Every structure is written in C-alpha cells, then in structure tokens.
C-alpha cells in the first residue's frame, strides 16, 4: 500500500463529508414542514413564531444560515436541538453506544456466521446440505427487515417467550456488573438477529460462490499437490481471495446496516440513533438530523476506505495510485 495514496484518500474524506452535509442541509430546508410550527403548534401567535425563528437563527437568509452552521461544525459545535433544547452532540453521544452495539454485533455476526455457512455449503457442493443453506439464504435475503423483525418477535418473544419484546434493559434488573451485561445481551439478541439475518444470507451466498470459484483455480491444485490438508486448502488458500467480494459487499453495506438499524430500532424499541433520527425528522428538528447525517457519512466513508485497504491486503496485486 503506498503512503501517497493513503494521504490522498484521507484528504478527500472531509470533502466527501462536506458534500454530504451540504446536500443534507439543503434537503432539510427544501422539504415541506416548518420546525417552528412543529414546535409551537398550528395556531400559535405570529409574534411567538418570530421569537422562535430568531432564537434558532431561522430568520436569516439560507446562505447565511449555511455559513453559520458550517462555521459551528468546523469549531466542533453541532448546534442545539430545537425540541430537546440540548446540544446535538450530547444527544447523539447518549444514543451512540446502543446503535454501535447493535450494528457492531450485527456486522460481526454476519461476517462470522455468513462465512462459516459459505464454507459449509461450498465444501458440500451439490449435496443436500448445500442446497438447504442456499435456499434458506435466498429466502431470508428476499424478506424485508421489518417482516423478519415482526416474525422473530411473534415467534421467539411472544410465542416462545424466550426473549424480551423490546427495550435495551429490564427495569427490574440490576444496574451494574455481569447481570447487567447479560440483561443487555438478552435484549440485544432479537434486534441483532433481525438486523443481521439478511447480511448473513448475503455473506453466506457470496462466500459460497467465491469459494466454489476459487477451489477450481490452478493454485489450489498446486496446494493439494504439495500435500496441504483439505481443510487448510479451503481456509487458508481458497478463502483468502474468495473473501474479496464479501469484503466489498460488507464495506458497502455498513450504510445499509445503519439504515436497517433505524427500522429495527423502531420495531424493537431500541434506544439508539435510529429512533433519535426518526423522532427528530417528525419534529423537523434540523440540527439533530444533520448531526446524525454527519456521523453516518463519516462512518460510511471510513468504511469504504477500510474496504479498499483490506482489498490490497487480501490481494497484493491490487494497487492504488
């Protein structure tokens, strides 16, 4: 990996994020609905409206608002929520851990389980376990996240009663130590399952096909001719390059995971960024929406950069310049 390329990519990062923020800013202001009306009600008096507008700086022309906002963001201030009346950064920081926990565990789960299923299928290529994995993956892949969410709630929470229906913690549980962690994990299981099932399916299908393709390569025959054990051939020789498309997809789907988290958080009442965002949008709470945008944009851009770096590690022939 050449250092110049890395520096250039890092330099592009703020530009990309700035472009996303600009688009978000304009979209919010072009969208119908008025935050002041949302806050003060339909039939408030004109003076109170004007007072609120002046308070949030909404009385200034749009370009001026943009310049002020941009200046604030550069100095590390994401503004104040219209509705909550507290700094946006604080509101986001409060919700962030829950979302990171949910999407992070979904990402890890989908990678580990997906790739394992892919290997399992590929090694039994053409026999019934392969077909079963393949069909299940296709079915799950085709089902929308909210449907899967509802189904697991119906089946595993309401039906079997194994898992809580919603929330992140139980009101009666202890506040510290291992019991608390177990409680969170118990609550996390269903939302993570709902969020991850599609990713697992996608990763399983991709790694299966990638492996099957890779196992036909000449260099695999070389490894076998050397006397390398079949398991090592699959895990060390074939998997490495079979993972290239998986990495691409996973990197690209970090954004999807965040978007999926919005729905899953709503379904399971998970106190994360997704719910914060949905509420903020309903209230036309611009600063919060933009703050979440910023965070998601940075995450996606960084994830893309990591994907590219991972790529050249998996296949040293890939050169960026």
């Amino acid at each position, binding site marked *: 990996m050449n250092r110049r390329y890395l520096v250039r990519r890092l330099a592009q990062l703020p530009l990309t994020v700035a472009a996303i923020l600009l688009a978000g800013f304009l979209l919010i202001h072009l969208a119908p609905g008025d935050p002041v009306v949302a806050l003060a009600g339909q039939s408030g008096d004109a003076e109170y409206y004007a007072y609120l507008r002046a308070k949030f700086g909404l009385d200034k022309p749009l370009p001026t608002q943009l310049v002020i906002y941009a200046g604030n963001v550069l100095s590390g201030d994401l503004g104040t929520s219209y509705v909550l009346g507290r700094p946006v950064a604080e509101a986001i920081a409060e919700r962030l851990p829950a979302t990171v926990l949910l999407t992070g565990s979904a990402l890890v789960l989908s990678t580990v389980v997906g790739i394992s299923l892919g290997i399992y299928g590929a090694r039994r290529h053409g026999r019934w376990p392969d077909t079963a994995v393949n069909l299940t993956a296709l079915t799950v892949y085709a089902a929308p996240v909210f449907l899967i969410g509802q189904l697991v709630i119906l089946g595993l929470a309401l039906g079997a009663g194994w898992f809580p229906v919603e929330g992140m913690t139980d009101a009666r549980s202890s506040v510290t130590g291992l019991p608390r962690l177990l409680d969170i994990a118990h609550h996390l299981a269903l939302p993570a399952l709902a969020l991850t099932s599609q990713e697992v399916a996608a990763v399983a299908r991709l790694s299966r096909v990638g492996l099957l393709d890779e196992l036909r390569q000449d260099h695999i025959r070389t490894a076998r001719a050397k006397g390398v054990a079949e398991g090592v051939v699959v895990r060390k020789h074939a998997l490495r390059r079979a993972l290239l498309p998986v990495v691409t997809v996973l990197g690209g789907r970090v954004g999807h995971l965040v978007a999926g988290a919005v729905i899953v958080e709503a379904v399971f009442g998970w106190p994360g960024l997704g719910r914060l965002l949905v509420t903020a949008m309903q209230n036309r709470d611009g600063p919060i929406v933009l703050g979440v945008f910023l965070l998601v944009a940075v995450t996606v851009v960084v994830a893309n950069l990591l994907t590219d770096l991972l790529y050249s590690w998996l296949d040293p022939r890939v050169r960026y*310049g």
Partner: protein
Amino acid sequence: MTAGPVLSVRDLVVRFRVHGRPTTVVHGVDLDISPGETLGLVGESGSGKTVTVLAATGLLPAPPVCTVRGTVLLGSRDLLTMDRRTLRSVRGREIGMVFQDPMTSLHPSFRVVDQVAEALLVHDRALARGVACRRAIELLEQVGVPHPGRRAGDYPHQWSGGMRQRAMIAMAIANRPRLLVADEPTTALDVTIQAQILEVLRAARDGTGAATVLITHDLGVVAQLADRIAVMSAGRIVETGPAVEVFAAPGHPCTRILLSAVPRLDRPAAPRPEPVRGPAVLEVRDLVTHYRTPGDRTVRAVDGVSLRLAAGETLGLVGESGCGKTSLARTVLRLVDATSGSVLLRGTDITQARGRRLRVIRRSLSMVFQDPYSSLNPRMTVGEIVAQPLRVAGRFRAEGGARRVADLLDLVGLDPGLAARLPGQFSGGQRQRIGIARALALSPEVLVLDEPVSSLDVTVRAQVADLLSRLQRELGLAYLLIAHDLALVRDLSDRVAVMYLGRLVETGTRDQVFGHPMHPYTRSLLAAVPVPDPRCRYSVPLMPTGDPPDPADPPSGCRFRTRCRIATAECPEVVPELVPRAGGDHFCACIHPAEIPLRRGP
C-alpha cells in the same frame, strides 16, 4: 533394471460425468516408470495425458463427478485405495508436481518464498518457520532465481513467468521426491525461457535422481529430456518405446501426425514464391510508443522502429513476449497512439488521422487476433460477426449483404450454411477461420496477424497457416506477422525483423536471418527452438541467460548486452545502429556480430 518401477499404472479407467452423462476419458492405461528414468507422455490436447496423471495422484474431483478405476502403485502401495491422510503425505513428499501455467499455479496472495516453504512445512511439523524459509531461499537459488534472498518479500505477480516456473520446480523438488511430474511445464513460456526451464528440470531431475514424467504436446520439448516415450490418443496409449526409436521410426499414425506437426528449423524451409518488390503499402518510420504506468514510470514499448512492408509480402516480426511486438502492431492499427514517428499507408501519414478519415483508413488495415475463443462475441452468430465490419463501415448493402458474408466464409473454407450458428459450436481452428473472414470483410490491403495460430492445437496450426498463405496469394495481401513460433515465421515470411526490448536488432530476408543470423540475440533465439530429435539436444553455450530486462528501465548502450554471451566493455557505451551487412539488405544492430555459423546436432 534391478529395482521395480517407481510408479506402475495398471488398467487405469477415468470417467467423467458431463451433464449427467458418464463419459470415459481414459480407457485402461498401463504405464511403468523406472527409477531415474524420464518418460515423455505425449499426445494432442484432450488425449487424456493430464487426466491420467491427475487421476493417479488423486487430484481429480471426487465422485460422482469423476470416477477412477484400476491400480496405481507407488513402490508397493496403491495410491487409489490409500486413505486421504496417507495420500496427502505422499503428495509433495514422494511425488513433486509442476503444472502448465506458472501465472495461475502460484497463489497470488502469498509470498513466493512462503509458498515454497509451505511445501517443506506441510511434511515436517517439527520444522521451524524461519528454517523453512531459509531452505526455500536455497531451493530458489538452486533453480536459478537470481538473488532470492533479496526477493523474499515478493509476491508472484512481481516475478516473470520463467521465474515463477522455477519457483514451482523448487516447490516440487523441495522434499527430494521419488517421482517428478511436469505437466506441460514450458507451454506457456517463451522459447528462450523454455530452454532455460528444461535445463532447470534436467538439473532438478539429476539432482534428486527422481523418476520423471514429462507431459507435453510438443515433441521438440520431449526430445530434449525423455528416455522413453508413450504416445496417447483418445484416452489410450497407442505407442511406447525408447525415445530414439520412436523419433526415428514412429509406428502409430498418431505419432507420425504429431511428429509432422512440429515445425522443424533444422530442415530446409518450404519454398516461397519470389516476392514482388512493389511499392511499400505500409511504412513505419522511427516509431515510438511509450506508456505511462501508475508509478509515473515510462514503459518504452516501442522505441524507434522503422519497417517497410510491400504489397503481397509477409514481414515476420519475432521476439520474446514483452519486446513490443504487439504494441507496434497496435500503434500501426491506431489502437494505441504513437508517441512520435510516423506510419505511412500508401505514402500518407495516418498517425494524426481522426474521425471519418481514420475510419476510412481502418478499412485498409485489419487484424487477426491471437485467441479465437475470446476474440469472437459468444452471443453473436458467425454471420453477424463477419458482417460486423461491413455494417460499421456502412457498406453491408453495398458489398452484397448476406451474399458477401457467405462468400467470405467460403473463402476461409467454412460452410456458408453455418452462418446462423454461434461461435461456441465451432472448434478452435474453425473459430480462427471466422476471425480471418471478419478481418477480410472490408478487403484490406494489410493484415496484421498477432500470433494467429499459437492458441491452436499443433495439428490444426498447419491448416490455418496454409489458409493464410493461400489467401495472400489469391488476394495479394500484405501480412505483418507477429509470432514467437520461429518455424512458422520462417515458413510464411519473405522478410523477418527481430525485435528486442522496443528496438529492431536484425532485419533481412528470411534466408538471411534464419540461414545466417548475425545478431547474438537472433542466434540465441534460434538455438532455443527445440529440435524433435533426441540426438540433437540443446547446446548450452548458445542459450540466452536470464529474463529480458524491464522495458521501463532498459540497459544503456546495447539493450541485449545484459543477456549476451559475447558482450564486451564497449557494449554499455555504444548504442548500436541497424547497419547493412554482407548482402546489403541484411541489417544488424551489434558492434561485433560474430561470424560463427549456427550449428548443432550430431
């Protein structure tokens, strides 16, 4: 022979299931290989050579895709009934294998040294990683990789094909196997590198004392190494015997066909009609084509080349891969832009032509590509493929439409009734005929033939070469023939230009260049062509050494000096010009061309 055979194959039958139907590809093969012996297993592609060996070593897909019957005894143990664990311990330890394509046979994501070291580590769990790597570097040194210690961090893509094949051999001999299997080990390589690799294989065999199976379709290659020959055809062994006898008196028709298909540089060339010394159709003057690489380096692909091609004449352009032959052709065809210099088509410079004028010029220049499998659109019918140039030029109607297509197919020896079929339904030779028909559609004056037969089966090559000769006579075409197959170039060309690292080093009539080669590079190229006669093996002193240098960083002075066996202290100082020698139209760019004639054989 006192000891029993190292490998003994009895009644080997291999069945594949293709689209649910079982097909037998090997019908009861018997083979014996004695210790220290080299067996040449030869046959056309598809005759079952490779499958036989892969079946014997258990490297074919598992049933039900593929079933193997018979016995394969390595010493006294049957490889076919062995459990997987034991078989694994035999592979790579007692049997070392070298495969055809060194570009794909090494893992692209692991360092070469680690891959060689893995061959040791797999069979010796007690071995420390560092020790294995040091031993791997020794092995690489042994097979002639220069300074392997300094290249320990390299990945396969950073190595040339020849170096990668050396690495494969290093891997195969790492555990001093009893049996060495080399499956078409030089087919993907240049003739100069082929000569080097065969030398390395010979040394590896002699160093380990392993019995060797050399699988190849090239009887010239097999003659260099084999003690005994087994000829396969359609899944059966049709002839077997000592190499000298089989070559001297081939018994089976298949052997005779294979033998006659080998181009022979050691025999007189086929006569060619007296070339018409007409005006030049195509003239290339001081042509330079440079590419920029991402690392801001300049690859000097073509670096000042001048050529002249008269109507009805063939100019053969030879040289190793990477010497700039194809870049030159592409520049002539305006597929790549020239950096400087000019290309004159009937006296007008075409390097600056744009738009409509360029399209008109392109009708006079046409190309036949190397690979008939990838150069025909698989979703277009043959008729559409051949009609394509006519349609693009807007001349489909004017030239007679479907009738013109039928005429073109007829011209290249294909049944015009097959125009509605897809390329997938044709053999390699037929596909190349389709490619030729397409190239002829707009009645060009100049045809660029880029390795026109090298991806075809040996027996088909002669047919396509004959077709090209006939078309040239009938249509008065001028050919720019690019090939690394020197015998083919000799048979088809009137004049020959030898290219090395972007420059021409020798030009002349074919009898001058092949009969009295002057440049040391030309002489080593010719010496590297294997003669299909076990009594005429390579003479080592004529071989070129090492790989061609990097075209982005060519050596100073004479570019060949780094591999030349007669280079002197003057060579790095002087850039040799192409100057006429002896006959007047025989040019050579060397400050001291030796006058030693090329001789070898008994």
